[in-house]
């Protein structure tokens, strides 16, 4: 699973990255977390608000810092749906 944190490097994006990192740790799955900070690359995900979280290339959360439970739910349901 690949998790992208989209955001131009603001405090909320860092918080988001931290929440995702901890969630991945707690769920205990294999996942690569990477940050996308370049605005052009962010736009490739078609988001209009940041921070955003994309799982396997699909945007699942945008415009806010997610809660731990949300991210855990995302992780356990996988990028399928």
């Amino acid at each position, binding site marked *: 699973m690949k998790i992208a944190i989209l955001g131009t490097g603001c*405090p909320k994006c860092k918080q988001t990255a931290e929440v995702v990192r901890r969630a991945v740790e707690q769920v205990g799955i294999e996942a690569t977390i990477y940050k996308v900070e370049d605005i052009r690359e962010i736009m490739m995900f078609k988001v209009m608000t940041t921070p955003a979280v994309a799982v396997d290339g699909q945007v699942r959360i945008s415009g806010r810092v997610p809660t731990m439970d949300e991210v855990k739910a995302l992780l356990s349901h996988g990028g399928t749906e």
Partner: protein
Amino acid sequence: MSECCERKPAGESGLGTTCCEGARPADSSVPTSEAAPRTTAKYIIIGFLALGIWWMVYQGLSPFAKWFTFSLLALSPGSRLTSAVEFFVFEAPKVLMLLTLVVFAVGIVRSFFTPERARRILAGKRESAGNALASFLGVVTPFCSCSAVPLFIGFVTSGVPLGVTFSFLVSAPMVNEIALVLLYSLFGWKIAAIYAGTGLAIAMISGWVIGRLGMESHVEEWVYAVPGGGDEGADSPDVSWRDRIRSGLDSVRDIVGKVWPYVVAGIAVGAAIHGYVPENFMAGIMGAGAWWSVPLAVLIGIPMYSNAAGIIPVVQALLGKGAALGTVLAFMMSVIGLSLPEMIILRKVLKVRLIATFAGVVGVGILIVGYLFNALL
């Protein structure tokens, strides 16, 4: 727009970007509680109770300020210190309480709107009608200037005309809930309505003018290469009331939690002016008689980056000392609506000439409002 963007200490990441959307309801992809109806009823009852308590406390503020000033501190009536202290002890909790209530209400209203929905409504709209619609949507859609770039690109690439996009970008910061609450609580509904009306008019007209100027070529080329359309991300079709209330509470925590120091500082400055600056002191500098005061107020306002919460208590004190309403409105609009950090952020997608045009057109609009009110009142 949410009052959520702060200038970051320099060097943290180049530009002063701070991402900070207001709270949003949970994504539909995340399972929410099953017992929704019962919890909703519980939330409504708690809500009414909270509102009742809020009202009683609010009513008690004025007696409390008097008691605090005259009985507890035993200050003698009529002195400068007394009037400053009473102003502060009354206004600070009052403004914070109003702010909490309105930010909560706006948080709920905004849970019905998303930038994605605004874009869908505006895509393909013709100008003029589109400009008007965009200005209204700018007020109710959760947005902050640090998301200006993705939002701008999202709009432009999915067929929202450039001028219409600008109407949105102008009205979103300028006509915001915090400005309206503070104006209402400190000056009454008339001035709040004047501010909202003229702010919307400036957004509509300046967006229309920018559209007429046909400056599409002054948008950075790569923007148009971004694939348009797509409604990915947070467009949650069925959000329960429970989630909406939660998003209201989240925005209170987010916004009030962040702006309260500015409000308190603003009121403290206001209190000092209230108590120590002589009546009509400002009349000479910011009065209606000085023609140069309006442009000066706008120029001073642009580099000043404050949110409405910090600036309005100062504005109230200025008005009380004889500054003219038009000048003060112009100053406020310039501080809130024309911010240098936002322009720097927009530089990523706009060429300098378009940014200058944008600032110029909006600036002229603000000037007209300033002169108009100085002439009328």
